[in-house]
């Protein structure tokens, strides 16, 4: 594990949407996906993650359903909606342009 980065404001939503873009997952899986994909570089507390999931759900970006998990326990599964998919696309491209612009500015 390298140096841990604080999560930038607004980043969490796009990460969650990205995590769900590969199929429906429960909250725990989303949390693991983020940790594995960033190799622990991003530090995400679980509480904000769940708050964000619920917020996205009410906003209509994701929808949730109780279902059976791998080990046959009841888990709450989240799935991207069409509007969530659109949001992911828009957010991701914003992020990329932003990152590129910042990198440009910081380049020596």
């Amino acid at each position: 594990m390298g140096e841990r980065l604080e999560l930038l404001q607004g980043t969490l939503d796009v990460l969650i949407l990205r995590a769900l873009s590969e199929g429906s997952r429960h909250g725990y899986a989303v949390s693991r996906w983020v940790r594995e994909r960033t190799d622990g570089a991003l530090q995400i507390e679980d509480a904000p993650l769940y708050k964000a999931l619920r917020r996205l759900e009410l906003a209509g970006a994701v929808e949730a359903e109780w279902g059976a998990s791998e080990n046959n326990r009841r888990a709450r599964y989240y799935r991207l909606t069409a509007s969530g998919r659109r949001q992911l696309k828009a957010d991701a491209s914003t992020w990329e342009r932003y990152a590129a612009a910042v990198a440009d500015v910081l380049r020596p």
Partner: protein
Amino acid sequence: MADHRALRQGRSAAEIGTDVDAEVRFHLDRRAEELGASGFSSAEAHAQALREFGDVDDTRRYVVRLELASDATRRRSRYMTEFLDDAAYALRRLRAAPSYAATAILTLALGIGANAAIFSLVYGVVLQPLPFPEPDRLYAAYSANRGAGQLQSPVSPVDLDDWRASRRSIEEIGGYWYAEGSSGVALVGRGSPQRLSAVFVEPGFFPVFGVPPAHGRWPREDEMVRGGPDRVLVLAHGFWMREFGGDPAIVGSSVTLADGPYAVVGIMPPAFRFPADGTDVYVPYSTIPDTSIPRQRFVRVLEVVARARPGVGEDGVRAELAAITARLAQEHSGNRPWDSATVVRLAEVISGPVRRGLFVLFGGVGLVLLMACVNIAGLQLARALGRGREMAVRLALGARRGRLLRQLLTESLVLSVIGGLAGIALAKVLVSGLLALSAGQLPRAAEVSLDAAVVAFTFGLSLVAGLLFGLAPAWRTSTEDAQAALREGGRSVAGTGHRRLRVAFVVAEIAVAMVLVVGAGLMGRSFLALTDVDLGFRPEGLVAVQFTIDSDRHAATPAGAAAAAEGARPYVGYYQQVIEAVRRLPGVVSAAAVKDPPFRGNGERINVRRPERVIAAGESTPVATAIHVSDGYFSTIGARVDGREFTARDRAGAPFVLVVNEALAREHFPGERAVGRSLVLGGGPIEIVGVVNDIRQVAVAEPARPTLYIHNLQNTRVKTTIVARTTGDPARLVGPIREAIWAIDPLQPITDVFTFDQSVGRALARPRLLVVLLGAFGLVGLALGAVGVYGIVSAIVGERRREIGVRLALGARPSDVLLMMVRRGVALAAAGVLIGLAGAAGLSRFLASVLYGVEPLDAATFAGMAAVLLAVAVAASSIPARRAARLDPVETLRE
């Protein structure tokens, strides 16, 4: 997914919390399992998982709050969507039934439009505060002679000075002299001489109202006293705009009136229209010379306005003025009978004369709206019957009862909003029509407009109406037994309950209509009585030209000086010359002059007694009205004289003679012939040479007061009205008469020109306005009542088709069927008429104050109107009844 969300809707906080907890527990368990696999003990693993998660309680609280809030917004938006759906649905349904929609909207528009229009008048004229600062503190004050029953007399300028000097709880008090048509000044030096409507004001007049001028200033107090620099004037806004194009530079310049230049010191703002809309200028009262109106205690000419100090009420003002006046009566012998003062709220004085009439109209128009609502409720109920099956099906399919109720109410609201909008448009038209119809009859007419308050009132009205007429049918429909409705196939859902309600509506409608037509009938009879009044003269063919002679100017002429040397007034020659000139005009049958023509002046008050009668101390001398006339006046206006009327020989120097009217003769010489007897007016006995029939002077509705006529050559007055009887159209002679006067004196301003038909018309205008409007309300009431009766009988015929068919098949004659159906309609109407008669009897006393010559409980009117209403009911029910009589029994039985 919408369904999924819908299922979760409206969860309680506890349910949401449990949901969150379950999700979090799953997460913590999984994380602990994972940590356990990498060597943590079970307890350590759980502690670690919890640490990584963060604040569980906070998460739960957050989610609960979030979901509840979002639920609320969703509920609101769903309600809105449903309302819009309902409204769109209602519109669709109304479009599908255009005749129903048109009837309902038209009825409502009429009811609401008429209401808004009348309310505009009531609001503008009566309810709206006067356009002065703190108008509640403003009062009108009068001198009172309780012995003679004269409680509201104008005030002497000398008395007013004392009132003003001794005031304590009155902040400011001021007087003015204004008489429509006679208190004028001549504006010269700006084209042809112009007569301006002037208000002559005393110090205190402007401060009482406290309305600052738009430009310039009020006259100072030292500019309003006799002998001071009082040649100043203030312009009314309308005149300033008209004559000077609104140029503020006019302040400080001067204008020339007949008696010289006046400095314009100020211009009042547009809202200041006191005492009348037509006011042009405000001139200090001090500029009126003693030769016109002597400034003495017995000359009571001023109207007085006062502003109470804050916290002082009507009683306080009255007590103060009464005390001062009582003291003056002690100190000055001439004032002895004038020992009190009357105080009335200014708002009441201004709108008082029309207040009752307006409230009567408002009541009438309210009844019209009530009928409109009942009518629409009936219409809606009839429609609801047809929708019984639809409602039943929807209930059976699980529609919420509340939702159905709301849908029906929405339809009512949509109707009433459309009706309200149409009503406002109608009201706009009606208000301008009413103002035109009541031109000159309505104080504060300029303040009447369809303003925000009125529009708000109308909309409120239409919404209340919508709820009112939507509620009963909606409630009936939604409590309908769905199963029964389905079973009956929606054909005859018209259960007895429904019918009873419709019958109640119709009876109520007829009752209200009854009240309306009785009101209209009483007003109509009163109006007929008014037009039937014996005026005591023949107004047709008479024309009048009014002017005021400038005594000072004529005194300066050689003829005037000669007359004055003989002891006559200097303008007597001029006066006679003018009458003679008019008499010579072609088309003039006869001409004469009078100071106060009928309906244009009340004459002067004068003490009168028989020579032998001794007035005891403390007893007041009888008072009569004195009117100054020329020779030939009575024959010109077409009055009958017993004895003789004045002739040119009754001049100054000849013995003073009088003509009296029958009322005076009755009072002073009961049972005797008055001709040849004498009266004392103050000096020696004066012979009565003629008795003229009673001539209505003050108003058409007011019987003649005891009046004596004085020959103008023996006791002259400057205010003159030339009256001419003409052949053909009297208005044609106005021009020639004016020219004849100007041929003698080109500087003579003409105050007013009118025909007596106009004059009588004006006196009848206010009652006519009332009778026209109440009559219109009555007709609308009759029409709505007829529609109601027609509707209910039609419905009954529709329901009983089979039964009627059976009857006809069994040999009943069509006329029997006709009679049976008409009887139903008339029975309903009769019930309504009875209730309405009782209501009308209770309400008609409110009309008493506007009625003339007819009792509020006039039996003939009540009976006649009941008969009219029943006849309308017969006519209305005979249409569907005839349809029933013509039914083909075979066809009805096959249905």
